């Protein structure tokens, strides 16, 4: 199976590198929700444009947003 973002070898949806970023995104949503009461989509939008977000996390957020739009 290939990673949906970078085509590296993947166990499920993502390769090892993007999987770590995905898990970080899921884990940090609670903090964002508590802090600002944002929806999942708003949260993804926020982190996708945040300058401190790491490049892999950004790629995952953008990919998740595309899926949300479909």
């Amino acid at each position, binding site marked *: 199976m290939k990673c949906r973002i970078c085509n590296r070898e993947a166990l499920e949806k993502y390769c090892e*590198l993007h999987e*770590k*970023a995905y898990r*970080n*995104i899921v*884990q*940090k949503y609670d*903090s*964002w929700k*508590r*802090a*600002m009461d944002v929806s999942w989509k708003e949260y993804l939008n926020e*982190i996708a444009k*945040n300058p*401190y*977000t*790491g*490049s*892999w*996390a950004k790629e995952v957020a953008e990919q998740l947003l595309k899926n949300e739009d479909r």
Partner: protein
Amino acid sequence: MEKYTLIITEKPDAAQRIAQALDSKGKPKKVEENGVPYFLAHRNRKLVVVPALGHLYTVAHERGRRNYYPVFNFKWVPRHLAERGAKQIRTWIETISKLANDAEDFIAACDYDIEGSLIGYCILKYGCENKEGVAKRMKFSTLTKSELEKAYDGPLSQLDFALIEAGKTRHEVDWLYGVNLSRALTSAARRWSGKYATLSTGRVQGPTLKFLIGRERVIRSFVPTPYWEIRAEVEIKKSTYEVEYERKRIEKRAEAEAVVKACTDKTGEIKKVDMREFHQKPPTPFDIGALQTEAYSLFRYTPRRTMGIAQRLYLDALISYPRTSSQKLPPVINYKNILKALSKEPAYKKLASKLLEKEELKPREGVKEDPAHPAVYPTGNLPERTLSDPEKNVWDLVVKRFMAVFGETAIKQGVKVSLEVNGHNFFLRGRQVLKEGWMQFYKPYVKAEEVLLPPIKEGETVRFKRVICDDKFTNPPPRYNPSSLLKKMDEYGIGTKATRADIIGTLYNRRYITEERIVVTDLGFDIIDILSNYAPRVISVKLTRELEKKMEQIQSNSEKRENILLEAVQQLKPQLEQLKEKEEPIGEVLSKAIKRVRMQERIIGNCPNCGTGKLMILYSRKTRKRFIGCTNYFKGICSTSFPLPQKGTAKPMGKNCGSCGWPLVRVQIKGRRPWRLCFNPDCPLKEERKKRNEMQNLQPGSPRKIL
């Protein structure tokens, strides 16, 4: 023919200085043979001082093909036989051998450390027909006349064989790791793609890159979380001060907004004024790592650059030997004499005189020791030539640090004023230097940022003029820079003080890392991925450190070279077998990564026309000429293209034009100065230049007009 003593030094500059110091008239005769300089001096007897050029001998494969691995049989050979571009080494060795024929005594006067001892030993053994057993050793930490005379008059009766054995082992182990692993990677990529690319890793390179990868992974998968910081402007005795809220971070927006609402435009009360005095001891003397770190933070010089500058200052006898890990300054260096000599320089006169007034000069020292050399210190000599700005900076830094370590403890006062408003607490902080102590000697490298507060009493009221809530986000850990990476390597005990800076340089040269705030490239990731999967032991920080410790033990005769070499081979063998077995998949991964890196290096920026493509340096399929085009060019979507000069190299600069904001390209033609090229045909700068040229051409007498 008159017999003489042959003195071997590490570098030509050192040879000149040693000859000058030892010649009874201070004027040795310089002779040059086949481009190799040496010096004739007289001091009781004739002396011939001949320099090496760093290492003249190196470890090489005993026999066999060039790109074959594994290879475990090696020998020491002249460098020109093992390395391309080292042709002059042949004449160098021939000259030294010729001079050795008529020499009666031999003295090794290379730098007193592992590398210096090994350089001297190899020349004496291989270049002077086994004179290593009869040669004496000069030991010195500075190239000043007095110390060199002392070292010559009382040399060590034999070479420092423990240090030499440690040096030999280090070179041999590094060769075993470097050659085998690098060949494994290079040949895997070559077999897959048919193209050659230099790939390397080594005993220290691998674990260092692994550090960087660990940090890079955290940064790239980092997700920030929001928080809020509250500060307020308060009015005290008609002046405005900024105060900070009792909680540094507030995790909920609603909560932060409530605090702002509750405090804005309210009157608060001063609840407590807390004054505290604290003492700051002088800094410790510079070891090479601390000097490199300080020079980076003050002047942004990379560790490699600082090492080069310090080496030049050492060869000019301005500072002591810089490759030291000591933080000690023994009294034998004679603090007073150094300060007296420094006071001849107007810039240091006042400070040095102040220290000389002290009854006793006692430096503050650190814990680190180096058996061979003290910490870095100024010799007291003043420059005999005009120093370049970077040299001036580093010399001044060493001088001022030396003076600062003799200074007294600085005393500072911190004031913390607690204010309460509507049930919320804020703090106002002030700080002041009560006694400068050592800080006066270390200016401008230490700054006392003072915040002076007016006299404040408990119970007084203050008006909260403005309460500000700042939106903040948690930050990823900082990227390493060459200086912090060097510190990390030192902390983990991998590499040596002399090699760490070069290893970082190699990681850049191999394109595993880029930029000053280090970013690991895809190629760097893939190298470590491959090594983690197929040869995990060679990038293990723990194993590297253990091997490093064992090599250090050779210096104290508590470990043997043979054991370490055997251990290295035993560790490497199974790892190399694995790499060979998986050569095909490794080659595929590496070839693709190299291709990606090369593509990345040609990308200039986003396409200003189509918005989806990227501008990069492309090559025409018909003419093979290069130009700047959009990545969508060959797909037929976007035809944006710009011409490029066909001669020389063209590389994206990573900077934008100051006038039009378009990305810049750096063009360099051999033998000419590189220039920045803005390829925007409508760039206002070009228009201006055009007009200026036209004006010039119109002026009477201008060269073009005449033509």
